């Protein structure tokens, strides 16, 4: 009898998985490059084109999307065993829409200028395919902590791409970074800005170049 209980205890004492185990690190690191939501999965392109004329709104957008992703992933993951399969898409939408509205309300209260500038694009986070894609592909089948890591990874993967696009668009389109006039500061007050960069077309070019460079490095081929 006594030996049996000891054995049982040993089974229970099997060490818990570390908070950032190798498997979990993959959730965060993969979406940054090898499985990037924008450049590899080609999701969330519309907002990558629309908000990236300047860095400041882009940063707000990146933070907002990451926030919505983390909390919707967490919420859906917590409810994953309760959600009826037949209405899961509607449930996901409801959760996302609630979080997006919260973000929008907070922006309106504390960052009114940003709220006006981003206007419809905050609301359009709801239709950002990355958010729903992660809920459907990951949160519905995984534990809360794993889902949070997955959302953080994908949020970061989305953020660094749109921030890079915005960096080049603002630099060459408006000659500034975060509104700070770079070319005036280094002595080229008459630097010819490129009107193409201000329009969405400019974002396509830069996004294309990023995808190109990335695929040369990783050797990724679409099949």
């Amino acid at each position, binding site marked *: 009898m006594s030996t049996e209980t000891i054995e049982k205890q040993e089974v229970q004492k099997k060490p818990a998985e570390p908070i950032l185990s190798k498997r979990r690190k993959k959730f965060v690191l993969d979406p940054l490059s090898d499985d990037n939501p924008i450049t590899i999965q080609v999701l969330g392109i519309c907002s990558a084109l629309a908000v990236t004329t300047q860095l400041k709104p882009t940063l707000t957008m990146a933070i907002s999307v990451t926030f919505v992703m983390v909390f919707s992933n967490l919420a859906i993951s917590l409810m994953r065993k309760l959600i009826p399969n037949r209405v899961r898409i509607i*449930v996901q939408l409801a959760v996302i829409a609630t979080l997006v509205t919260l973000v929008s309300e907070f922006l309106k209260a504390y960052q*009114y200028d940003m709220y006006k500038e981003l206007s419809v694009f905050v609301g359009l986070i709801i239709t950002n395919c990355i958010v729903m894609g992660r809920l459907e592909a990951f949160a519905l089948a995984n534990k809360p902590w794993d889902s949070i890591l997955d959302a953080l990874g994908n949020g970061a993967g989305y953020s660094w791409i749109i921030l890079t696009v915005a960096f080049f668009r603002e630099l060459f389109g408006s000659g500034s970074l975060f509104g700070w006039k770079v070319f005036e500061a280094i002595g080229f007050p008459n630097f010819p800005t490129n009107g193409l960069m201000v329009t969405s077309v400019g974002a396509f070019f830069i996004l294309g170049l990023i995808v190109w460079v990335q695929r040369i490095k990783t050797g990724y081929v679409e099949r």
Partner: protein
Amino acid sequence: MQRSNTYVIVFSAILTIVLGGLLSLANQGLKPMQQRSVELDNKKKILGSVTDLTGKKGKEILQLYDETIESYVVDIEGNKVEKDEKGNPIVAENVNIAKMSKLPPEKRLYPVFCYHSPGNEDDIQAYILPMYGKGLWGAIFGYIALETDMNTIKGISLDHESETPGLGARITSKEVQNRYIGKKIFDDAGTLVSVTMLKGERHPASQLDDHHIDGMSGATLTGNGVNAMIMDYLGYYLKFIEKNRGAANKTASL
């Protein structure tokens, strides 16, 4: 796993109630802060048409507004209106131009914001008039500031609901708004001609006289909207403008 219809309905109902409650809580909690933001934004736009506010913080702007702006409301005849039909006092800041624009012009209220030197209400430096119109995709609005001769434009501030970023949305940039400064709204014969934004950009200086300014490339329709809006509202305020213009001329000739 297939779940019963009852489960699905109950689950959806609970979810809706929880999420709805969360939203209304946030909405109620944030409302005062949001109203303050809207008020600040409005005052920023009014002051922005006469002075440069870059680098000023919210509190400083509100204080500056209190010191330099005196406001009242006029009707289409240019007469002051102090009370509404029910006898309540009208506050110019609370007049909603967007709602007013749905009424026929002669029934609307027209707020006037007088910009004076700090603390001295008699030393008026500009009259700031609100405007509201249609751009390409949605509403456009702003304030136009006239010098005391009621002819020269001291400044303008423009904003929009959903013009194309980088094209029509450029009306919010100082670069475009500064093009209006110093232009005249009346011709030599005293007829209202307003100021028109031309189609296309980088016009030679010879084409830009007192009544024409350079346009925005790729945003002609937004430009047309701005032109129509300025013309319309100067028309609505015409009686008021002429009254004050007469007064200004009289003092000048004396």
